[in-house]
């Protein structure tokens, strides 16, 4: 992507990962494949979203009390952002429901690094 000044700019990614154990892996992996990780947080916070204005949000919805509500709120805060959600939720309808409230890509438990790359680039 080229900015108006002609410099190559990288898409800004915010990672929301409640499992701190896994957050560095996602940050490193996403940075390595060419994105600018602007923030890592354990939960979606309105102030953080407004301050960072990410192009892409990667959300681990697996341990959220209300995952669909969270996806809907993220979409409302960041209408133009690309929203990637991953979760091993048992309900087979969950991916469709999540897309219905604003997720652009929903990844399941079998998703691997190429799937993550494809999801970010989609």
């Amino acid at each position: 992507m080229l900015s108006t000044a002609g410099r190559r700019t990288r898409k800004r990614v915010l990672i929301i990962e409640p499992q701190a154990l896994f957050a560095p892996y996602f940050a490193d992996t996403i940075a390595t494949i060419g994105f600018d990780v602007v923030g890592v947080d354990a939960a979606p916070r309105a102030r953080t979203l407004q301050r960072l204005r990410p192009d892409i949000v990667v959300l681990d919805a697996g341990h959220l009390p209300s995952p669909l509500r969270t996806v809907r709120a993220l979409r409302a805060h960041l209408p133009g952002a690309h929203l990637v959600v991953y979760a091993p939720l048992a309900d087979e309808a969950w991916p469709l429901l999540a897309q219905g409230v604003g997720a652009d890509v929903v990844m399941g438990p079998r998703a691997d690094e190429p799937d993550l790359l494809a999801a970010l680039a989609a």
Partner: protein
Amino acid sequence: MKTVVASVGIRVAVVESQVLFAKALCGIFADDDAFVVVGDYRTPAIDTLGLAEPDLVVIDLDGQPVDVARTLGTCLEAAPKARVCVLSMHLSPEMMQRCLTAGAEAYIVKDISPPELLRAVKTVAEGQSYVDPRVAGGLLRRRSQSNGKPDIMELSAREAEVLKLIAEGLANKQISARLHLSEKTVKNHVSRIFSKLNISARTQAAVHAIRAGIV
């Protein structure tokens, strides 16, 4: 007490249902010279986990079947020399109790950093146990309130079901027919119930069930 000697590295097998999280875990251990990752599994399959001969099994319970005793029992059956470290997102004394009762040596909550995980797992490899200090307090309080008596909450849902039928006077064969389980499986459940409740007779089990209000 089983102690792991790290002459060529502590052999770790990772059991993690989600592929990306499994990569994260394997990477954390692979980046530390003290460890050698010898297995990466989605479920604790007996044949493959046993072949890896791990010193430690690190299993993320989130995403595994809800019967903790059965899941951890499978790990220990597959790798009887291994020490099992449980990862979980639940800051729950009840869940921790179930894991320890089922044979886990560590209960680690996943809101810690990778270096903290490595420290905890090394503690277990040295022959000690590790429990998240935030959960341990709750467990001690529960133990104190029950005056050290065994707790019915330590039973899995299936074990509670079997206990209820024991209290109703059913024999193992009748329980197996009622629950559509083999008689051997029922026997295993009964053994675990006796062990968890520290009892040796079905009548004592019935008393526990009545006191706990499950019959």
